[in-house]
């Protein structure tokens, strides 16, 4: 059972059926019957692809560069793909739809998936990409990266150079998503001498110079299979400090970067003709656990009603946009949301449960004032969110004290000793609800700390796991979430936006793609 669990969880971490609502064409999920549509040969960057000015070096920054570029290890692939070096079989677009990239198409039949590769795909050293090389890459990923060890259980054969057949124990609906994660980037295992410093991949750029945990310079891959590459190259400076990035951008030394801070966004906003600002909601959400064992139901419900997410987000000027549920309302599985802000109703609920308004505006029950603590931490402005919640809850008659921990996982997340605990995690990775359900809702899992877990929802979660019909999956997920919201165990507050900035006229750098691992590509231009 344990191995299965590991397999399911890591799969969903990146998996996500493409069943995003009306935004894009009805790209069907990897439903067994209909094979995914074949997209145009070149990667479908939905922006206007006509490069304004050709050539040039794109300068950007990377806050925490890794010590190696080995695609299969840890999270290094997130950088190799961002730098336009490595590519994967499938690609997640801005509307979370998944389209073929190195692969031509995928045909899933219950637990057997047949993937055919595109013609003419070759590595930067000219060697052609073969199905066998893809197979060996997947095996290497399974051995090198513990998060993908489950891939070793798949049975992969390559009848010929262009096709690869993957057989899994049971039906595995999120296979296409697995092959859309950056970690499954393909390297020429024979042609690469130094996996850490110069992996040979199929991307539009190849490594020119890489300083471990330092700057990384890439140059155009002349024999790129996907057509002409606009940029001559790109440089990713190591820059950890937000204000220095701002100054570098203002000084024209960098042409654009992602994940900009709220303050910098405001400054760029004041000068629209030299800077282009981009904001796209990601899947990272900030929410609060309301501890079932320490807070009565009425208090939890009142807390959920007492938070005005609009006003809270207004303070965060662009870093966070309001979220009333684990998933975006546009998603089919996000139809159910938490009730909106209603202080009057919150007070009503408290009063009906025997709380009377005390002297200093804080509710009391049999002599005990309702003073709670919010446990939070100082990363990603979670402490600021907690601070604003404190204000709003005080207005609703609930006294709040803040308790800042240096790291949540080591403290209240593992000890479960908290009343209101703030946390941040990625909920529906690549448009599939599984990741959150199994990571936070299922009983006994690491992030299930509010005491919600029960057998009934666990069964429903398993059902979602193996249900291949997207609508049905969404339906069950909505039902699960309804139960979560009714239990008032969790209070969803906001979704983090990926704010990026580009120099006027520049295009690309994956600024509209919610995923972190899409950066420069053949069409990026200055």
């Amino acid at each position, binding site marked *: 059972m344990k*191995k299965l669990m590991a397999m399911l969880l890591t799969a969903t971490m990146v998996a996500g059926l493409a069943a995003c609502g009306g935004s894009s064409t009805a790209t069907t999920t990897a439903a067994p019957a209909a094979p995914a549509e074949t997209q145009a040969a070149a990667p479908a960057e939905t922006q206007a692809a006509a490069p304004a000015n050709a050539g040039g070096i794109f300068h950007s920054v990377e806050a925490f560069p890794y010590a190696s570029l080995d695609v299969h290890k840890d999270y290094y692939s997130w950088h190799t793909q961002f730098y336009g070096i490595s590519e994967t079989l499938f690609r997640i677009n801005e509307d979370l739809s998944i389209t073929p990239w190195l692969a031509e198409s995928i045909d899933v039949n219950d637990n057997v998936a047949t993937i055919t590769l595109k013609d003419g795909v070759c590595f930067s050293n000219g060697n052609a990409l073969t199905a066998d090389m893809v197979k060996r890459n997947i095996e290497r990923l399974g051995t090198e990266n513990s998060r993908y060890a489950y891939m070793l259980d798949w049975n992969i054969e390559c009848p010929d150079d262009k096709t690869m057949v993957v057989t899994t124990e049971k039906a595995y609906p999120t296979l296409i998503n697995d092959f859309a994660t950056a970690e499954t980037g393909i390297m020429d295992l024979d042609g690469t001498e130094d996996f850490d410093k110069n992996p040979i991949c199929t991307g539009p750029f190849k490594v020119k110079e890489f300083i471990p945990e330092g700057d990384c310079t890439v140059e155009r891959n002349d024999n790129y299979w996907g057509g002409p590459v606009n940029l001559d190259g790109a440089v990713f400076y190591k820059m950890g400090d937000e*204000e220095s990035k701002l100054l570098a951008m203002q*000084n024209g030394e960098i042409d654009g970067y992602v994940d900009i801070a709220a303050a910098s966004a405001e400054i760029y906003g004041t000068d629209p003709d030299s800077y282009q600002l981009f904001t796209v909601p990601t899947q990272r959400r900030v929410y609060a656990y309301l501890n079932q064992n320490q807070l009565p139901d009425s208090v939890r419900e009142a807390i959920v009603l007492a938070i005005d997410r609009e006003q809270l987000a207004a303070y965060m000027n662009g870093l966070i946009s309001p979220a009333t549920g684990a998933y975006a309302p546009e998603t089919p599985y996000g139809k159910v949301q938490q009730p909106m802000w209603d202080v009057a109703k919150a007070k009503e609920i408290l009063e009906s449960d025997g709380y009377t308004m005390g002297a200093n505006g804080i509710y009391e029950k049999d002599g005990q004032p309702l003073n709670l603590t919010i446990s939070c931490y100082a990363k990603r402005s979670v402490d600021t969110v907690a601070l604003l919640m404190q204000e709003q809850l005080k207005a609703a008659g609930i006294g709040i004290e803040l308790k800042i921990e240096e790291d949540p996982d080591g403290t209240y997340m593992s000890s479960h000793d908290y009343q209101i605990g703030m946390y941040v995690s990625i909920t529906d990775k690549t448009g599939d609800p599984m990741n959150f359900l199994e990571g936070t809702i299922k009983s006994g899992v690491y992030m299930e700390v509010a005491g919600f877990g029960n057998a009934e929802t666990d069964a429903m979660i398993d059902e979602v796991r193996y249900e291949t019909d997207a609508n049905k999956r969404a339906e069950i997920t909505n039902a699960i979430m309804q139960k979560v919201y009714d239990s008032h165990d969790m209070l969803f507050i906001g979704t983090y936006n990926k704010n990026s900035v580009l120099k006027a006229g520049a295009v690309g750098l994956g600024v509209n793609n919610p995923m972190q691992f899409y950066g420069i590509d053949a069409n990026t231009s200055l």
Partner: protein
Amino acid sequence: MIPVLLILTFIVFSLMYLTPGDPALMKLTSQGTAVTDELLAIEREKMGLNQPFLVRYFNWVLGILHGDFGVTYSDGQPVLPKLLNGLLYTTILCIAATVFSVIIAIPLGIATAIKKDTLFDNIVRILTFTGNSMPNFLISLLLMYFFCIKVKIFPVIAKASVSGLFLPTLATSIPMISKFARQTRADVLGQLGEEYVIGMHARGVKERVILYRNVLHNALGAIITIVALQIRTLMGSQIVVETIFRWPGVGSLIMNSIKARDFPVVQGAVLILATIQVLVNLVTDLSYCLIDHRIQLE
């Protein structure tokens, strides 16, 4: 000397062990994705976290004796080369900043001591307070704003070269200059009150010689102590300056590994920094004797 280092590393090891937070968990959730218990177990096994506390410490010590600083948790790379490379740059910055500060602060301290309570003395006093009460990130950003944006002598994105060294040195030196200048002034004032100064003047000895070769020589004891103390805080407070000016020092490595509870890196760093610290203390004690022969070598 050796017992000091051993005790120190044991204290740090137990401190890190007592601090809540599990390195394996931190590494796996570094990108915010969920993680299963099996994965945690595998990672812990790989990091050797399951072994009892003392066993892990002795393994580490044995490793050190063979010159093996072990492997980092975050990316499995050997610790020593990573530390030494960063340490080289941090030491360069430390030395540059200390030398720069001493060259500016000592004459400033003497001048303010001689011209006590004049306008010059008060202006310098106010400047030193400003320098001393501004956090180094504010100083760094203001310097960067001035030199890179307004005057455009240096690029914002500096290279780890000599030109890239100028701004971080300046940023590190400003608080140090304030400290040294104040300390020199106080000690030189103390010495100026001594009789021999008048005796020397009465013999027609040149002002400069009296000041630099005698008054300063006698005041050097306390000044060296302050300089040595600054070296310690330097190693710690480099992080901000190094991050802002992209100086590839060891500061950010230490800071990140402490936050990620990367024990081998923290232990290795503490051991090296402690050795430097003890050496520095030794040198300062020796210098006391050089200056004032009355202090025998304890």
